[in-house]
């Protein structure tokens, strides 16, 4: 369950990055999505609507990013950071009246037999977004490998100039990729505020957006590894609760540090060999595309 927001956000960012765009604003989009979902969910009680609202809000933010970086050719790193800061501030600002409000979160369904197992039983309480995340993984994987659209996307990510001279609509593909990333980040945020911790708190994503970014690198831009990595991180996060149950005398702050420290360690291991990265990283990642001859 803890892994699900990571899966959504990371898969979306994977698609964006495979098109050659580095969007560091995932954290901001997640927060905006979380707030939108909570606001709609708390006031109307209509959860599907809340998720739609979350997607919408995050997509709007991602469009802003796309406009600045793809049309106005701004620096992708700086703009992504600006997006995060803006998302943090905007969600804090607009969310002040929602802090502390109650919401009926998502109900989860227990898979009959598997959820009875001892330690890992609770993992098998699933809800719709969790199933959705698996479906999304399949969809993204198939899209990238088998469809023409996926081929176009990969081509754009490798060399937008060549793709353009072949007549591919590079900017349009990148816009769509960014928007997809926005939509999934919105869902991820919505899941946070309606399922993982059903409430709204300023800055509640606590760096998950950044972990999702790290996940994409860790997974060398392959969807399956994103899935595995997300579950790994979800496991680490959940470890906290269990360890306290085991009565270990380690202060809670150090447990909270685990996901972040784990991210650093994993990144170090993966990136150590530059050849691995060079083979898998989309060659044009982070570079602006200038269509004018």
């Amino acid at each position: 369950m803890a892994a699900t927001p990571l899966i959504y956000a990371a898969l979306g960012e994977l698609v964006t990055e495979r098109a050659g765009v580095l969007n560091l604003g995932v954290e901001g989009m997640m927060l905006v999505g979380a707030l939108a979902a909570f606001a709609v969910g708390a006031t109307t009680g209509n959860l599907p609507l809340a998720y739609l609202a979350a997607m919408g809000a995050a997509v709007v933010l991602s469009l802003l990013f796309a406009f600045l970086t793809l049309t106005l050719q701004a620096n992708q790193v700086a703009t992504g950071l600006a997006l995060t800061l803006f998302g943090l501030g905007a969600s804090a600002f607009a969310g002040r009246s929602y802090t502390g409000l109650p919401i009926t979160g998502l109900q989860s369904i227990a898979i009959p037999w598997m959820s009875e197992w001892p330690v890992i039983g609770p993992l098998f309480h699933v809800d719709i977004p969790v199933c959705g995340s698996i479906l999304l993984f399949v969809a993204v994987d198939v899209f990238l490998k088998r469809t023409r659209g996926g081929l176009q996307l990969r081509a754009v990510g490798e060399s937008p100039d060549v793709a353009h001279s072949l007549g591919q609509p590079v900017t349009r593909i990148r816009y769509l990729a960014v928007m997809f990333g926005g939509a999934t980040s919105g869902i991820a945020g919505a899941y946070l505020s309606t399922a993982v911790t059903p409430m709204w708190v300023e800055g509640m994503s606590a760096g998950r957006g950044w972990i999702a970014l790290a996940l994409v690198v860790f997974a060398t831009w392959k969807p399956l590894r994103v899935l595995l990595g997300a579950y790994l991180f979800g496991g680490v996060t959940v470890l906290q609760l269990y360890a306290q149950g085991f009565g270990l005398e380690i202060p809670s702050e150090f447990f909270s540090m685990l996901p972040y420290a784990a991210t650093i360690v994993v990144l170090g291991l993966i990136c150590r060999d530059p050849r691995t990265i060079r083979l898998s990283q989309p060659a044009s990642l982070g570079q602006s595309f200038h269509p004018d001859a």
Partner: protein
Amino acid sequence: MFDWPLRLEKRPRPSAAMRVAAPAAATLAMLVTGYIAFALLGKNPLDALHTYFISPISSVYGFGELLLKATPLMMCALGLAIGFKANVWNIGAEGQFTLGAISGGGVALFWGNTLGSLTLPAMLIAGALGGAAWAAIPALLRSRFHTSEILVSLMLVYIAQLFLSWIVRVPWRDPTGFNFPQSKVFDDAVLLPTLFEGGRTTIAFPIALCLAAAAWFFLSRTFAGYRLRVAGLAPAAANYAGFSERWNIWLALLVGGATAGLAGICEVAGPIGRLQPSISPGYGFAAIIVAFIGRLHPVGIVLASLLLSLLYLGGESVQLELQLPSAVSGLFQGTLLFYLLGAELFVVHRLRRARRETAAEVIAEVVQTP
């Protein structure tokens, strides 16, 4: 994609005028947006703008607050800018700030009475070293393991903040502090002296100005600064010239960490006066915006830090007077940065009306262009 009536065309030479005008234009756009936003929120927009921008600094105390808040912004941003110029993206200034506060604060708490007149310098140095040490982690990981310093330095921010909350809750907690998670209040001996009566500005501000001068000298006159600039503008050229990438990464990150750490200790030894879980309203992140608005130039950064300090003060001011949440300052900051990024475009490109010029006009123009 679409057929705009205006066409974007690359300038033959980047415009120096636009370089200076872009931040000004962005600020103006932000003010206009603020005007509209206040109006939409049901407040008198001009009044609100006045409350936000003018009233905070209309007293001596207020002016002191302006400089006080600008100081950590300036210090962090100077270090960050040096890194950004070399394409080293240190996003973890907030974490290095925290570590600097902890290390300098540790010196204050435990050796405050034994070092005599060396206490303050020792604290400042400890702060800078603490921040630099924290920045050494992403430096090591980038130069040895090729990991992104963006992600590593960011993860370390969360770790640093958690570390701080633990350290003031458990080992360094003030025994007389009613169980609040905070350290003892610093003695007067370890507090930074203030600059003038009626304001809280400490000597950290002139220190920051000296840092700015040093940064300017470093970037424009020294060979090390030149190497950093080349590495940021054309990494293949830096390699061709034999400039060590490792050296540059370490230098860029350590400088950024040191200045952020210095800012951290100056904050806790100045206005805050003790170690506590929350010591920064996001200075480390706001400093990134300051660095960009200041166009990565020391003079620009000095001005930009004053501007952003004003944005913080304005947020507090409208919270008091107009009952708006202080998070509105985050909004202003983000908006300002967006406008600036958009305005950057016009440094390198210009707008032209897209019409089919006749061949004669085309030739006439080319003949005139040098």
